[in-house]
């Protein structure tokens, strides 16, 4: 061939191309391998617990009797966090994108991002030392005035270290995630839609209700699901704040436990079959959060063409 002299004049260069693109490809595949490795090693190490005789597992009634109360506890804590964080996060995102003065908006966004920078163990320590103490009078009030609701059944915990406190701390921790994602989506609302509705005489709230929120709905849903994924797997806030116990319906009594906190509290001293049990619990948590995250990412990708979110 006559043209090869141009492209293969320096063999070293071509080899360099091959080596480099091979290295980048290998790194990409390694990430996929790591993700499958996570699942594989968790399954391998968890296997003894799944097949062990029921009396070997903590509680003495087999793995499923052990795991389901803490799965429910995890869901309760995450639900509390979402119920508190979602409206506030949407409000904060709207404030930064549509209400705050333009010059202030980016620095206000940075202030909210600071919430994400604080390490989880510090939140846990704050929740245990400050929030639990400050909030326990409110629990007493709830127990005496709204005790007829099963979730506020008394007597309230004297220390305030309940699943509701843990849920509030979790809400603070997932707030910046939901806020920053929804803010990005609100900012991408087509300017023409907003201006058209204002020109028709809509107030600012009507403009947001009719132009911004319908446009952002899929983005909000996926942001909330990403927040849910984080709340499900968060460890330290629950491990430090909650005095754990058996599954109870009341949110203001001592009790309940989450998977992540159960692992963190027991893994350091565990041995033998206990290690397998805890790794199996981790596997359950991994499967739940993987499902939640994949659904959220799927929603984002499906709406990518016209929302450009993330």
């Amino acid at each position: 061939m006559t043209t090869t002299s141009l492209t293969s004049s320096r063999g070293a260069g071509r080899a360099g191309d091959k080596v480099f693109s091979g290295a980048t490809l290998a790194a990409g595949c390694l990430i996929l391998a790591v993700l499958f490795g996570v699942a594989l090693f968790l399954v391998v190490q968890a296997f003894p617990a799944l097949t062990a005789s029921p009396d070997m597992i903590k509680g003495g009634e087999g793995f499923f009797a052990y795991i389901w109360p803490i799965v429910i506890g995890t869901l309760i804590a995450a639900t509390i966090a979402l119920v508190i964080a979602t409206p506030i996060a949407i409000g904060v995102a709207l404030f930064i994108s549509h209400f705050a003065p333009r010059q202030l908006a980016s620095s206000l966004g940075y202030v909210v991002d600071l919430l994400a920078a604080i390490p989880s163990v510090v939140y846990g320590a704050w929740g245990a030392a400050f929030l639990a103490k400050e909030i326990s009078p409110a629990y007493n009030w709830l127990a005496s005035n709204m005790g007829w609701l099963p979730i506020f059944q008394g007597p309230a915990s004297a220390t305030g270290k309940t699943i509701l406190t843990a849920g509030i701390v979790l809400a603070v921790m997932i707030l910046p995630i939901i806020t920053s994602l929804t803010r990005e989506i609100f900012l991408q609302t087509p300017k023409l839609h907003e201006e058209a509705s204002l020109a028709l005489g809509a107030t600012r709230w009507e403009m947001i209700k009719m132009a911004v929120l319908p446009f952002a709905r899929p983005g909000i849903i996926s942001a909330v699901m990403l927040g849910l994924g984080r709340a499900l797997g968060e460890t330290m806030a629950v491990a430090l704040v909650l005095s754990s116990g058996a599954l109870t319906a009341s949110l203001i009594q001592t009790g309940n436990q989450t998977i992540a906190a159960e692992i963190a509290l027991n893994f350091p001293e565990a041995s033998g079959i206990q290690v397998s049990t805890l790794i199996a619990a981790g596997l359950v948590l991994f499967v739940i959060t993987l499902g939640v995250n994949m659904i959220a990412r799927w929603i984002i990708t499906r709406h990518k063409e016209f929302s450009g979110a993330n």
Partner: protein
Amino acid sequence: MTATLTPVKKRSALTKGQLPKWAPYLVLAVALVLSAAIMALIGFHAFGWGLVSAILFAAGLVGWSGAVEGSRKAKDKLATCLVVGSFLIALLPLVSVIWTVLVNGLPGLMDPGFLTTSMNGVTGAFDNKSVEEGAPVVGGIFHALIGTLLITLVATIISVPIGLLTAIYLVEYGNDRPLARSITFFVDVMTGIPSIVAGLFAAAFFFAIVGPGTKTGAVAAVALSVLMIPVVVRSSEEMLKIVPNELREAAYALGVRKWRTILKVVIPTAISGIASGVTLAIARVIGETAPILVTAGFATSINYNVFSGWMASLPTFIYTQILNPTSPSNPDPSSQRAWGAALVLIILVMLLNLIARLIARAFAPKTGR
């Protein structure tokens, strides 16, 4: 003079039926005074005062607006109040956390030797003595500081090459192939892996390869890498994408090989963004507790070797000092040490965030003409 000659100050027809400009300030002042009066009746509490004032302010402004301007304007005012209120609520925990850590952490940080000694040989007897006889609190966080820095360093050394190469693959070689799309998708999914599961993975991996019960700094570094790689990939990918295509085409036109173009043109252009992304990733994993808890164990003495022996770190130090105080009967010295360590950790994380922002701002690539 007759009444007809006095100049009547008439409001323009355009502003009729609107609240005057000073209306919110008046309502705010009234709300503050009223709620202060209520607080004086039932006992003063700063938080309660703020809350009651906010509710009174919103109710007053919305009610007045509803009476003068109609329900549409009133709804708009209500929405504004709710949105601003939610922002103020979001600020509360931030202020409260920073205040709590500062107040509780400064006494610990002021102790002589807090940053330069370890907990080696510090037993409950010392803590009992400091509480009962007023002796200074002994023990420090040097071992935890060393552990945190070493574990994070190893995690960075593992994650940055893998993350950067993957980002290069996605941007320069991927071309939206199925493999590239699945890598993007799974990197996104990986960002959602709970940190404790990453720790369990590293533990399970080393239990299977090296032997049961292997707990060293290196295991913790692998766990942190699992959390760090997706962050590095995402941020580097964003940065590589904004490198203008003209630069690549100019290099190709000069006959430069693709890999030389990437190394000499693309990466230098994007290096500030990549560096700030890596710094933010470090800031994210340096405060992770759960993965280190299950992979590196607890140590009270200084360990410089990442590959053997248990290692302490700042987050696990805070955790153990709170949950299992050195002296169970007198937990105060332990909690003082924990808050001191928390203050050091927050300062570290904030510094890293600040550095990342400075890098991004100082060397921002100039994409404009």
